Structures are given as C-alpha cells and as structure tokens.
C-alpha cells in the first residue's frame, strides 16, 4: 500500500502529477472537440432540415461514413491528412510550415467525429420542437440567426440534452484513442508511467478511477442541466442515456 501511494504521489518520484496533466489534456481535447462538434452539429442539423438537396445528400454521406468507420481509423486518416493539408495550404499561401499543437490536432480530429453524431442528435431535437413555435417566429419576421438563438435553441434544449450528455461521455473516452498516435493524454501518460515503473495494475486502475470520476460528475451535471431545461415540462426521461 505504501508503495502504491508513493507511485501515485503528485510530485516526483510519484507519477500522479503526470496522470493529472494527462487528464487535463484529455479534458481540454474533449471540451474542445465537444464544442467544435456542437458547432458542426448545429450547422449540419439545419442543413439537413432546411438545406437544398445537395447539402442534404452531402451531410448524409458525412454522418453515415463517420458513424460507420471506427474512430481509430478516422483519427489516423484525419491526423495525417489534416496536418498535411494545412501545411500544403499555408505553403501555397507563402507562409511556410505550420506547427499544429497536439491539442489542436486532437480537437480537430475528434470534433469531426463528434460533429456527425451531434448532427443527428440536434436534428432530432429540432424536429421535436412544435412547428407552431417556429412559424410564430417567422411570422414575427425574425431573421434566421435570431430565430435560432431565441427560439430554436432554447426550445430544443430539453430534447437534445440526454443525447448530448451521452456524446460528451463519448468525447472524454475517445480522447484515449489519441494514445495510439502518441499524444500525451491520460491513457498515454498512464501507459508511460506503467511501463516505466512496471506497476501496470496500479496505474491502469488509477486512470480508470479518474475517467470514472469525470463520467460520474458529468452525469450529475447533465442531469441538473436537463432538470433545468425541462422546467415546467412533464417528466419523460428517456430510458437510453
């Protein structure tokens, strides 16, 4: 037990600080990817519902492909292609090489993945808004962006939150996949700590506990948020979280 505490202590020679740093990286990427995914999702959902036939077909291809291909494969493709493209573009514009931080690359890669799921969730939520509300907003002559901000987003919140909560959990867990490209998020830091000290069980269990804490706290936060968004509505909490 003494040994375990020493290994996990926050300052060297303990590796706890490394794990926490990895956790911070994971959370940064998850937050960024979740936000980026929400932006894509909102645009995608509006495109799917109100866009022209070409927009709709392209979005259908995007959501289908991303949801059927393993994240690991997408991460590899987007990771290499993404930085390649950005570099080529900046070189073409005469700026020379560009340095992309690991966090930015992670956000870009996972954000694209999250966007596909967010598109479907938000599309469902927008469709669940009573038509009359949107018609009323139109009748008042609201411009589209204002309608989105004042009517659609508040009205769809309660429908979207369970799905989005789930999506956030997926985001936190998917950051672990970045370990495969060598990015130092929590899982990678854990692996490095474990293989440097040979205390595999200790570190993997500790990392598992950290992930679990994030999950449980998030679940609690989203339950609160849902209760708040649902104020005044009859309770119809869906079974599938």
């Amino acid at each position, binding site marked *: 037990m003494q040994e375990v505490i020493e290994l996990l202590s926050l300052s060297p020679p303990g590796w706890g600080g490394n794990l926490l740093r990895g956790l911070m990286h994971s959370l940064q*990427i998850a937050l960024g990817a979740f936000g*980026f995914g929400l932006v894509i999702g909102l645009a995608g959902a509006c495109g799917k519902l109100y866009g022209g036939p070409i927009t709709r077909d392209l979005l259908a291809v995007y959501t289908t492909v991303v949801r059927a291909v393993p994240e690991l494969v997408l991460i590899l493709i987007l990771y290499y292609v993404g930085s390649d493209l950005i570099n080529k573009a900046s070189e073409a514009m005469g700026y020379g090489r560009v340095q992309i931080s690991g966090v930015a690359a992670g956000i870009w890669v996972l954000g694209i993945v999250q966007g596909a799921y967010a598109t479907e969730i938000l599309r469902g939520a927008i469709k669940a808004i009573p038509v009359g509300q949107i018609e009323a907003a139109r009748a008042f002559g609201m411009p589209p962006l204002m309608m989105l901000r004042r009517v659609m987003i508040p009205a769809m919140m309660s429908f979207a939150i369970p799905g989005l909560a789930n999506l956030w959990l997926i985001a936190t867990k998917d950051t672990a996949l970045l370990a495969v490209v060598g990015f130092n998020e929590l899982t*990678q830091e854990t692996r490095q700590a474990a293989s440097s000290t040979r205390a595999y069980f200790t570190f993997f269990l500790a990392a598992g506990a950290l992930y679990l804490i994030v999950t449980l706290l998030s679940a609690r936060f989203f339950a609160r948020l849902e209760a708040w968004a649902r104020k005044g509505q009859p309770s119809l909490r869906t079974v599938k979280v």
Partner: protein
Amino acid sequence: MTMKTKLAGGLFALAMAAGMAQAEPVRIGIAAEPYPPFASLDASGEWNGWEVEIIKAVCTAAELDCEINPVAWEGIIPSLTGKQIDAIMASMSITEERQKTIDFSDKYYNTPTVIVADTSADIAPTPESLAGKILGVQASTIHQAYAQEYFTDAAEIRVYQTQDEINQDLASGRIDATQADSIAMEDFVKSDAGACCEIKGAVADDPAILGQGVGAGVRKGDHELREKLNAGIQAIRDDGTYAEITAKYFSGDIYGG
C-alpha cells in the same frame, strides 16, 4: 495559463496557424515510449537517456534550436513526411527500404541485433532453434523485417507496437523470445523485470535489412537540415562530447566500425 485560454489557443491554432511566425524550432521526433537506456521518461515528465543527450549535444553543436517531440513509433515516418516533426532521432536504423521514403544523416551509433529469451530456454539465434516458438518483434523495425525474412517459416511472429510491450510479454512468458537491439536488451536483462531472461546471441548479419547503423531521419530533399545534423554529429565526435556522454551510460564504444 488557465485551461480556458489554453483551450481557446488550441481552437484558434487551426484558424490562426497560417499567420504564425517563421522562426520555429526544429522538431526532433522520438518514440513516445520508454526505450532505455536510449530514451526514457522520468516522473517529472522529462525525457532523458543516451540518445536524448546526444540529440541535445548535436543540436548545440549544429546551432539548431531543437524541441523534442514524442510521437508513436509506428507512425513516426508518416509524422515526418506529414511535417508534424522535422527529424527522427529514435534509434532508427538506416535501411534501403526506409531510404525510399526518407533521407538519413550519417550514422551516430551501430549495434548488433540479438535474440533474447528465458534463461532456462534452449534457444539460439537461428531459424532451426526458433522452430515452433513465439517470437515478438516491434512493428516497423528492422527486427520485424528481419524476422519476417528469416524466421517466418519456423516461428510464430507476433508484432507489437512498442519494444516495451514485448519485454513485458517476454517476462510474463507469453512469448518465447524477442529479437531486438543488443544495447537496449542488455539494459533490459539487467533490470528487475528482465531477470527472467538472457541474451542468446546475435543473429546472422544481413546489411540489406539490418542497415548500416542508426542515423537521423529527415524528409527527402531536406539537405539543409541533413547537412547541419551531419556537421553536428561530426562535431561532437571530434570534440569528445560523444565519448563523454557514452561513458556515462556504457562501458564500451557503441559507434561501431
């Protein structure tokens, strides 16, 4: 930096990247896993080891502003060609196969390739002796290429992402033997985790596969960086820095003939 600003920084990095300044450090890619005694991570998150010190010495001698970037070994060449890093200094052997894709500097060390197995096991570095055994090798290494050329008919070859994982499975007994670099293995069998095992001898040489020593990998056509690294390697060889660093880690010379 608070988390929020860091996050915003990350998001904007994509958008603002094109406008960023030019004077950036040379990013040296190393494998993101402990590979003692060449590179290992300590609890404060710092990389050190023989190769890391050599990298720093070469960069100082060549007057380069270097930054060490750990990358997954398996994707280290794509990272170089994809410009996430500018050079690879991760114990990568200079081989003909790799030279089709990237260029190399002059070698900075050269060591034999050995087979390691359980002390009690009757294993020698020959195909006959490995018949029916499970041999672990690291992905995209000369060892994988060699094993697939010479041992594939005899032994079951299991390919891992990192040498460290192989060492662990060797200690746990899941594999019978591994083929790897002699110095890394000497370090391993001396450690507690490697107490199980011993070096069974060097494999028969095949320079076409095993290469002509370890060099720094650079993008094809990046002659400027290659020449600077060559000059740096030559400089630390000449002024004794190389020997000094080597003496801290090894008893003999590892530059090779």
